[in-house]
C-alpha cells in the first residue's frame, strides 16, 4: 500500500539553513547537507530545500548544496525557489534534484510548466501554490505570499496539472506559522479537484494535525518545518502516530 509521506522542508539562504534547525546530534545546524543527512537517517520520506536567497549571484551555492546532498542522501530531493526558466530547471536537476518546485515563475509564465514537463517529465515538476482564504474561496499569492493575483487556487491547481504538473505543493497562508493545524478544507478541495498527489503545507503544530490533513484533507503527503526542526517531534514519532491512526506509513 502506498505510504503517506512525511517531508521536512529546509529554508536555505546563501547556502545556510535558516529558521534555526535544532538537531541535538548536529554540531552545525546551519549546514543544509548535515541537516539533510540527519533527516535521511531519521527516515524522512523526501526532503525539500527552499532556496530563499534573494540575490541570483548566490545561486551557485545552492547547486553545490544540492550536489553534496544528492551524493550522500539516497532519497528524493525537491528544490524550489528562484527557478525562472527551463535552463534554471535543467541545471538544478543536473545538480541532483529529483524534482523542482515552481511558484511565481509558473504563474507569470504558465507555459513554463508545459515546457519543463515535456522536457523532463511530469514527475519532476511540482507546482507550489500559496493560497489565502477570501470568503468561500482561496486566492493565489506570489513572491512568497507578498503579492496577490486574480487566480482562484482550485482553478489554478487544475490548470497547472493540465499543463503537466506532476504534484501540487499547497501552502495555506492563513495557517502557515500559526501551529493550529493545516487548512483541511482547502486541501481536500484541491486534492479532489486534481488527479496528481497533493502535499499539504502550513500550520502543523502537533501530530494530530498531520492525521487531520491526511485523513480529512485527503492529502497524499505532509510538509512540515518547525515541528521537526526544533526537535518537538522526530520523524519516527510522527510516523508512529500516523500508524496508530491507521494511516499507511513507511516505518
Amino acid at each position, binding site marked *: *500500500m502506498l505510504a503517506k509521506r512525511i517531508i521536512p522542508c529546509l529554508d536555505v539562504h546563501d547556502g545556510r539553513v535558516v529558521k534555526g534547525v535544532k538537531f541535538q546530534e548536529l554540531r552545525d545546524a546551519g549546514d543544509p547537507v548535515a541537516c539533510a543527512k540527519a533527516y535521511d537517517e531519521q527516515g524522512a520520506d523526501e526532503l525539500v530545500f527552499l532556496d530563499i536567497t534573494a540575490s541570483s549571484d548566490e545561486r551557485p551555492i545552492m547547486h553545490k548544496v544540492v550536489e553534496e546532498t544528492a551524493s550522500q542522501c539516497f532519497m528524493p530531493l525537491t528544490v524550489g525557489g528562484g527557478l525562472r526558466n527551463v535552463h534554471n530547471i535543467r541545471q538544478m536537476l543536473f545538480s*541532483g534534484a529529483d524534482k523542482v518546485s515552481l511558484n511565481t515563475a509558473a504563474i507569470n509564465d504558465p507555459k513554463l510548466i508545459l515546457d519543463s514537463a515535456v522536457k523532463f517529465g511530469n514527475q519532476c515538476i511540482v507546482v507550489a501554490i500559496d493560497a489565502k482564504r477570501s470568503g468561500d474561496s482561496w486566492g493565489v499569492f506570489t513572491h512568497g505570499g507578498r503579492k496577490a493575483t486574480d487566480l482562484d487556487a482550485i482553478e489554478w491547481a487544475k490548470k497547472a496539472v493540465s499543463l503537466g504538473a506532476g504534484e501540487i505543493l499547497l501552502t495555506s497562508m492563513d495557517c502557515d506559522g500559526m501551529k493550529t493545524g493545516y487548512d483541511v478544507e482547502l486541501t481536500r478541495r484541491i486534492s479532489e479537484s486534481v488527479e496528481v498527489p497533493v502535499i499539504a503545507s502550513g500550520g502543523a503544530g502537533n501530530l494530530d494535525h498531520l492525521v487531520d490533513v491526511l485523513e480529512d484533507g485527503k492529502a497524499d503527503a505532509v510538509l512540515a518545518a518547525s515541528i521537526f526542526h526544533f526537535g518537538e517531534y522526530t520523524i519516527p514519532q510522527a510516523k508512529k502516530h500516523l500508524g496508530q491512526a491507521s494511516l499507511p506509513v513507511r516505518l
Partner: protein
Amino acid sequence: MKKRIAIINYGMGNLRSVENAVKQVGADVRIVTSPDEVGEADGLVLPGVGALQDCIEGLVAAKFPDFLKGWVAEERPLLGVCLGLQAMFERSEERDVKGLGLFAGEVKRFKSRPGLKIPHMGWNQAKLCKGDSPYWNGLDDEQSSFYFVHSYYVAPEDESLILTTTDYEGVFTSSISKGNTLACQFHPEKSQSNGLRIYANFVDNCKNRH
C-alpha cells in the same frame, strides 16, 4: 578488483543519483553515450525518467537497441530502472510507442478513477515472487519499501519474469528478472538502504571480465 559498471547516458535528464548509488556500493562508474564506450564493462545500467518516446528515440539515435539485444543474448548483466524497465518491452500505451522488445509484453497506464492519484508517487512495498533471487539478498520478502514515481507499469507476457509485485489499488509488476537482467519500476537510487541493497546485489552478480 572493483566491478566496472557503465551507465547509459542517452540525453535523458539526471544520471547523477544512479551514478552516486553505484559508487556508494563500491563499483567504478563510467558514463557512456555510445555502445563503443561500453567496452569491457562488467555490468550495464539503463536508467531513465520522463517520456518513453524520448527515451526510445535517444537510445535509437545513440545506436543502443541492437547492442542491448546482443548484451542480453550474451547474458551479460543489465539493470534497468523506471523507463529503463519499460523500454525493454514491445510497446507502450504511452503514445503507442514501440519499445526495444527484449521481452514480450506491454506497458500500460494506471486507469484513472476518482480517488486514485496518478502518478503513483511515494514509498510502496515490493513483494517477492521468486524465492531464491540473488537480487533480493538482505531484503525482506514481503514488505521492503521502495520509492516509486510513475504512471505506467509493465505487463510481461511471461509471468516467470516477475520478480516482485506491488499493490496500488490493484497488483502490478514492480520488478522483473531473467538470468543476469534485473529491471525495477521503482528507483533504488532513491530508496535509501533498501535501494542501495539492490545496487549492491546487482554489482555482486556482475562477474569481473578481467
